[in-house]
């Protein structure tokens, strides 16, 4: 990657903007799922991709992973590790959404609300792809600039 591109992607304001967007999105997305783990398990079940045995584990852990990584990425603490998990979750969402779209499943996406959320469509997929690219930028170009960690230092 050339120097100019690296310079743009390492821009502290760009990184801060991405961190805020990802952080707020993931914190917001986690709240209803944490409040209603059974409903979120149903949303995962509707995608018909995972064996029954693994669905509850995912429904228990994933909302907290969203909340914790959302807070950490905004605060800039364990930022690159948080960006890794956010990127991985987005990758899972992208695969699940693509699969649901390809199979013509008309289901609630389960993205932000477990009760009467958003249906799956191409816009949702595009949004997740953009956020995935953002997570990669934070993971590989994120620095301690404008983080609580730097303030502590």
């Amino acid at each position, binding site marked *: 990657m050339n120097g100019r591109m690296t310079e743009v992607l390492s821009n502290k304001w760009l990184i801060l903007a991405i961190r805020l967007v990802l952080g707020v999105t993931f914190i917001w997305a986690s709240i209803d799922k944490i409040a209603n783990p059974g409903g979120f*398990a149903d949303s995962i079940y509707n995608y018909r991709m995972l064996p029954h045995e693994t669905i509850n584990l995912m429904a228990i852990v994933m909302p907290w992973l969203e909340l*914790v990584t959302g807070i950490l990425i905004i605060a800039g603490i364990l930022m690159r*590790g948080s960006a890794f998990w956010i990127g991985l979750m987005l990758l899972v969402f992208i695969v699940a959404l693509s699969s649901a779209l390809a199979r013509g499943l008309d289901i609630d996406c389960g993205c932000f609300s477990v009760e*009467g959320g*958003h249906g799956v469509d191409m816009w949702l997929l595009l949004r997740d792809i953009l956020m995935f690219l953002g997570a990669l930028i934070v993971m590989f170009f994120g620095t301690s600039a404008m983080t609580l960690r730097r303030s502590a230092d």
Partner: protein
Amino acid sequence: MRLARNPIVRESLIVLAGVLAISFIFNFSREDGIPLIAGAEDFRVQTKAEFASIEDAYRLFEDGRAIFIDAGAPEVYALGHIEGAIDAPPGSPELAGLTWLAEADTYVICYTAAKSQRQAGVVADKLMEMGCKSVFVLLGGFEAWDEQGFPVDGTAHKTGE
């Protein structure tokens, strides 16, 4: 060992360990926590309402003696729903506004487009709580209705094509 020294890997493992601890403690200490491992029966509809077959539901539809409630999200409802159905997902203001159904002399049939009719069961229970009588969950939901070629609104639904 070299991998563990990578800051991204190290930070990811710390985050994961913290999240696993918090999520398990929170889930197992709350009253409505869910078991770690689910069985197939956990995803079947659980409701106090009775079930209506597609044939019975269609007969009531033709006679104009039933109101159909779609428990799916508005976006999914817009893609396709039983003709004349009211969209009222769980927790929605639309569902809360259906108090008039308690006074109506009609059958109420709840369904969703999902394979699992769990959300329909949730809506059916809520309607019964609100005082509605003769509440049913449609066996097979929208998919089964659509496959029979019964009347639907919305053009983008994939099932039954």
